[in-house]
């Protein structure tokens, strides 16, 4: 099994942090081989930002993503730039607060992460809400593993709000797209 995951967005949206937490969840908690790479400009905020995670049950040779199995877009620019570099059966998750998608493509999962973050949490939790939705869509990744990975990445006070945001993203995708297929959340 090899899964190529690509996350695209803008600098400052937490694209890279989301990919790091994901890589640790797979690598440490699920014991898979992982390679996480990134590409960004010299700006601290703004500008295009892309992060890639390759997960495999055997040694990973090429560590970049050519055609994504899972593509996550945090903003419109990222979506437009990479939507073609995907496999035909690619699962696409977008931050629907900021991304307008092609209406004919039914494979796209929409999660209004910016809206949820701003109304229920803090603006900086956008990436973790997206990570929640992504965890629901990813194969061989348990809800608990990503949660553990979030806990170990933040101090106690920050972990709490991020865990709540993560749960919210996870359950949003679950309730909107998987009504009858409940994943084990214990």
């Amino acid at each position, binding site marked *: 099994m090899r899964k190529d995951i690509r996350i695209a967005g803008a600098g400052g949206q937490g694209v890279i942090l989301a990919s790091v937490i994901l890589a640790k969840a797979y*690598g*440490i908690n699920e014991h898979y*081989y*992982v*390679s*996480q790479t990134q590409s960004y400009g*010299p700006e601290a905020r703004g500008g295009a930002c892309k992060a890639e995670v390759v997960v495999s049950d055997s040694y990973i*040779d*090429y560590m970049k993503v*050519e055609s994504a199995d899972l593509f996550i877009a945090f903003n419109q620019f990222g979506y437009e730039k990479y939507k073609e570099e995907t496999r035909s059966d690619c699962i696409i998750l977008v931050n629907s607060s900021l991304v307008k998608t092609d209406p004919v493509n039914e494979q796209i999962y929409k999660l209004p992460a910016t809206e949820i973050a701003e109304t229920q949490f803090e603006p900086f939790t956008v990436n973790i809400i997206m990570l929640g939705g992504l965890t629901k869509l990813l194969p061989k990744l348990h809800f608990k593993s990503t949660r553990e990975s979030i806990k170990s990445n933040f101090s106690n006070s920050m972990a709490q709000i991020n865990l709540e945001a993560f749960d919210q993203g996870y359950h949003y995708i679950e309730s909107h797209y998987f009504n009858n297929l409940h994943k084990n959340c214990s």
Partner: protein
Amino acid sequence: MLKQKVIEIHGEKVIQGNEACSEAAIHVGCKFFAGYPITPSTEIIEYMSESLYKNEGMFIQMEDEISAMCAILGARWGGKKSMTATSGPGFTLMQEALGYGIVTETPTVVVNVQRGGPATGQPTFSSQQDVYQAKYGSHGDYEIICITPSSVQEMFDFTIKAFNLSEKYRTPVILLTDEIIGHMRERIIIPDCIEIEEKEYVKRCEEPFGRDDQHIPHAGNFFEGRNILVEGQLHDEKGRRIGHIAQKSGEFIRALTGKIRDNHKDLTDITYKYLEDADIAIIAFGSVVRSAERTVKMAREYGIKAGLIKVNIIWPFPEDEIYRLAGHIKTVIVPEMNMGKYCLEIERCLKKSKVISVPKLGGNIHKPMELFEIIKKEKNLQ
């Protein structure tokens, strides 16, 4: 002599290449780090500032890379293993003091996490453009040891190797990596035990720069009870200046380069795959190895007899081993993230083979498909 050291906190980790390098440095006993932060090597400096504080070492953020390089040389003569980390622009500034480290035969490790150049260039993008600078950057005749990791695990393992070789040969060692490897996170295994080179120096030695049969000097540190002059001019076995004596100066340079040239077998580190029946091969180093490896697998699945040669120590150039492994192979492809530099050495070595340089500019790594297309073209399979 290699001595075993047990690592208490070992096991699996998902960490960045830069962090793996720093962690290895701490385990191998590095107690002094001087540097100036620069993308994409800053994580090493951040990690070392915290770790050395916890491990009774010393960290100094210097005013620039010139002083950083000078400081790590001084620290080693003071008796502590030392290291610095930088990227292209900083590596350029370090060249003068690097030469000083070579002539004074000071063991230390310089990490260059390459980014696109020249000058400020591409701060956040990768390259392998400093391949020649690592060998020829400073003036005068000298040889250097330069190691190129291609994974996060190798960042850990090769940092230990860099320290050990620097101690063994008493010379600065360059760990030449790039942005992709430095910033990449992978699952690695921290071993429960590592081997550390520990030399037993002759105390109160009359000839601190006297050499053993491998041309390696047995100088120890300062403050060990001997009078010792350490300076940049060529010197005899007692440390006295000999720059004005042609014959002795020539002998010194022959010994300085000889300790690396004559030990090239010990300094050859190559791994290879699928070479037994190969009639086409890719020779690569650093991050590009990962693309090359995938390409070779793709070619094998396609029925093409392709092989891979991965060079771990690029300088001194492993001429004999490359010739032994690839001398009979018809076509050799050399992908590099520069204009095509290392391929010139390969060409010089493999005169009977067709050597194809595949340069890649702009900061991205070669895609396996690009290399596969070249293989197919060479095999007339298009």
